[in-house]
């Protein structure tokens, strides 16, 4: 025999002014099974909760209905009150008479009152069918997987490892360091990028809690939060890292030259190479696509000159498995390809280069020894035009969003140009100057006032060649006139674009991504580092364009999330999840395809009745299921039910009105 207690909240004036609460309470008392009903000013207050606790004991109630605000606000508060009174917290129902009645029917008190009564009737009917539920305990494997060895991945790995949690750091290229390793100096302080990055890289390599897997890729991820299983492909490097000393004789002698991707193709590297002098690990790998020994079976120079005999042409890709509890994705960004900008002569004019090419040129360890040079004739440029928003904020040719860092790095480039070539002049074409950040506006002022860079407001319309000069035409909107700048070199501030393999990786991990390929966070404001899939976190430009401080901050935030996840030996999980009744399941697998969390798998069970035949049924992984109910709705044989929202409960609600 059910004994339901109903508490109707005024929520001050929020509900009280628009719903006739005493009338609602009177109406509620008439419902069969309601043994107790009362109104109160603020049920969520301490005395309100005390009232619930006392009433449960005094009136031997079997379920509770609170008619108040959205369950998103105070469901937890009231559940706590129930369990404090010795009652199972899942015997609570919340009737939302604020957002669903008083707020939306402020002009019609009668209707709002009537709707409130209906909502309470439904909640009472549902609560009668409520069952006692218990939080699910899931074991946790305390090891984190960090995908990507740029500054975000490095920071996340170090922070997690410092909490004495083992970390596996997977990096696809031969060295960690990522994009930051390619930068010369960093805004707004102009400290040397490599000088601040390389100590961290060395820390990663020497950290007792970090397992560094360079030249590797994650190929599979199974399981659920706290209990993932990752398959990682260690690509064949053809060099035995255990014996190699990184002496460099092999790449000095290698006869094959290939465009150097670390230097954005400005110079050449060899087929056996280490990307840059401070690489971690500082061991070379053989590029199988270009090595003549691996393609044609001829050459073998590197093996001949290697004193340690570390070259092994027979090496194969190796698959390894790791059991992990959480994943941090930090795959970084690519530069947007400016090819559609034909009016800027991209691809036609050699002296129109991208920002990262310029960055490599002015970098002390870069291909030109720190001096910018014109790719066409090798001369040092005097007049350099910088064009911002190339690709960014261009719906026709590029992308809609702002890449966030171009304003700042262009200001930096203007300053660096002046540092490297004293008698030069920088012209910056801009649409807006977005310098939000600590010390950023001051930095832009430094470029404009101290360096004297000429800022011209407008997008460049076209570039044409006149002799060996580039004529850059655009408007200076400040004076409303067309300007033509005679330039030696043009640098395009190309947009930040997500790493091209992001969609594949997202599918592999079971997380979502946006139309560009940026991985999606769970909530844009309140859950910016989590993904919709529990236990997978995002750091750095893989989620959205970011500068270094933001990437590092987000990486540290993921570390805090991972540490919180691993703080106990087991994790508590909401019990409101789906379950399959194998007796009814027909094995159609419709549920498998609709599940947004990949929580449903199939299994084979015996037919029964002594038969040796088996049949396929669905099975829900309770660690992964988030209780969305999609499978319940699609199941045609009604084999799936959702705890806390059973078919019976829903039918009760419908019958009640």
């Amino acid at each position, binding site marked *: 025999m059910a004994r339901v207690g109903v508490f109707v909240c005024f929520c001050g004036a929020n509900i009280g002014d628009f719903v006739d609460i005493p009338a609602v309470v009177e109406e509620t008392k008439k419902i069969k099974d309601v043994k107790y009903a009362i109104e109160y000013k603020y049920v969520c207050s301490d005395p309100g909760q005390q009232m619930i606790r006392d009433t449960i004991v005094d009136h031997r109630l079997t379920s509770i209905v609170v008619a108040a605000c959205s369950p998103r606000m105070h469901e937890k508060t009231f559940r706590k009150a129930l369990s404090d009174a010795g009652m199972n917290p899942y015997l609570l129902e919340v009737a939302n008479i604020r957002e669903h009645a008083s707020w939306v029917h402020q002009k019609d008190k009668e209707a709002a009152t009537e709707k409130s009564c209906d909502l309470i009737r439904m909640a009472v009917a549902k609560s009668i069918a409520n069952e006692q539920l218990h939080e699910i305990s899931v074991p946790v494997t305390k090891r984190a997987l960090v995908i990507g060895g740029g500054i975000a991945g490095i920071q996340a790995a170090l922070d997690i490892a410092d909490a004495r949690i083992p970390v596996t750091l997977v990096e696809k290229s031969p060295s960690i360091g990522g994009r930051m390793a390619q930068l010369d100096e960093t805004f707004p302080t102009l400290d040397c990028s490599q000088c601040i990055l390389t100590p961290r890289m060395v820390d990663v390599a020497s950290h007792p809690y970090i397992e560094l897997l360079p030249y590797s890729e994650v190929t599979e991820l199974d399981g659920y939060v706290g209990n993932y299983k990752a398959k990682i492909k260690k690509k064949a490097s053809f060099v035995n890292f255990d014996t190699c000393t990184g002496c460099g004789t092999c790449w000095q002698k290698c006869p094959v030259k290939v465009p150097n991707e670390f230097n954005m193709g400005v110079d050449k590297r060899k087929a056996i190479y280490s990307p840059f002098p401070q690489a971690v690990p500082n061991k070379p790998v053989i590029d199988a696509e270009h090595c003549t020994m691996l393609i044609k079976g001829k050459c073998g120079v590197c093996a001949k000159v290697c004193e340690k005999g570390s070259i092994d042409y027979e090496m194969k890709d190796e698959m390894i498995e790791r059991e992990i509890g959480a994943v941090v994705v930090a795959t970084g960004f690519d530069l947007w390809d400016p090819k559609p900008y034909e009016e800027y002569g991209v691809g036609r004019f050699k002296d129109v280069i991208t920002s990262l090419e310029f960055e490599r040129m002015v970098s002390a360890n870069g291909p030109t020894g720190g001096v910018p040079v014109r790719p066409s004739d090798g001369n040092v440029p*005097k*007049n350099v035009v910088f064009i911002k928003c190339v690709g960014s904020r261009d719906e026709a040719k590029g992308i809609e969003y702002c890449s966030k860092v171009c304003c700042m790095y262009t200001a930096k480039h203007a300053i660096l140009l002046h540092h490297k070539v004293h*008698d*030069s*002049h920088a*012209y910056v074409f801009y649409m807006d100057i977005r310098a939000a950040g600590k010390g950023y506006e001051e930095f832009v*002022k430094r470029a*404009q*006032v101290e360096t*004297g860079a*000429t800022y011209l*407001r407008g997008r460049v319309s076209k570039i044409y060649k006149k002799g060996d000069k580039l004529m850059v*035409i655009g408007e*200076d909107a*400040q*004076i409303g*006139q*067309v*300007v*033509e*700048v*005679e*330039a030696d070199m043009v640098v395009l501030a190309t947009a930040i674009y997500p790493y091209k393999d992001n969609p594949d990786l997202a599918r592999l991990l079971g997380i979502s991504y946006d139309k560009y390929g940026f991985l999606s966070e769970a909530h844009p404001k309140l859950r910016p580092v989590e993904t919709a899939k529990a236990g997978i976190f995002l750091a750095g430009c893989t989620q959205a364009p970011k500068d270094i401080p933001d990437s590092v901050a987000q990486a540290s935030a993921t570390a805090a999330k991972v540490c919180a996840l691993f703080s106990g030996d087991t994790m508590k999980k909401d019990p409101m999840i789906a379950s399959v009744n194998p007796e009814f399941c027909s094995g159609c697998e419709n549920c498998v395809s609709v599940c947004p969390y990949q929580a449903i798998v199939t299994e084979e069970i015996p037919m029964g009745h002594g038969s040796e035949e088996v049949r396929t049924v669905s099975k829900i992984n309770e660690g992964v299921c988030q209780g969305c109910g999609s499978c319940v709705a699609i199941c045609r044989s009604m084999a799936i039910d959702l705890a806390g929202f059973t078919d019976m409960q829903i039918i009760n609600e419908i019958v009640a009105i």
Partner: protein
Amino acid sequence: MIKLGQQIENKFLEAVNNKSGNNVLDCYQCGKCVGTCPVSDFMDYPPREIMQMIKLGLKDETYMANSMWFCLTCAACSGRCPREINIPYVMESIRHLAIEENEYSDSGKVKQIMKFHEIFIDMVKRYGRNYELRMMAEFNIRTRNLFKDMHLAPKALLKGKIPLGVKKVKSTKAIQRMFKMAEKLEKTQ
């Protein structure tokens, strides 16, 4: 079309900066000066555009503008400038540079304004201060517009806004000596 990039140095900017004691590069083109200026509507380039023209080194265009001649040096702009640029000083500097290089607009209004300045200085030289009545008369004679603003005269006279005589300063000779010294200094520079 404005052509940029032929010279690395911006000599015009340097000259204006040196003369005005300001750095025009400080201007970030917010336009607060334009909104503040009581006469920006009469200028062909409002103060913000003049600043940008100096930044771009557009010497000839700047000299040919009427903006600096219309500027009243009321300093409302510099009182509100977020970058603390003394815009009246900049305007004054361009006036000086334009006269030094003998390159300025020959529009009627600019000519009148320059004449006004000349007569004013003449009054100060003579009396040590301005003699309004004579100043007005001379201005009207020299601009060949005898009856300009005449209708305001009776009212202004009655209210005592235009004194009939002038009270010379104690020593006009000292004033004249000062002018001579200033001329000498100008020549030695």
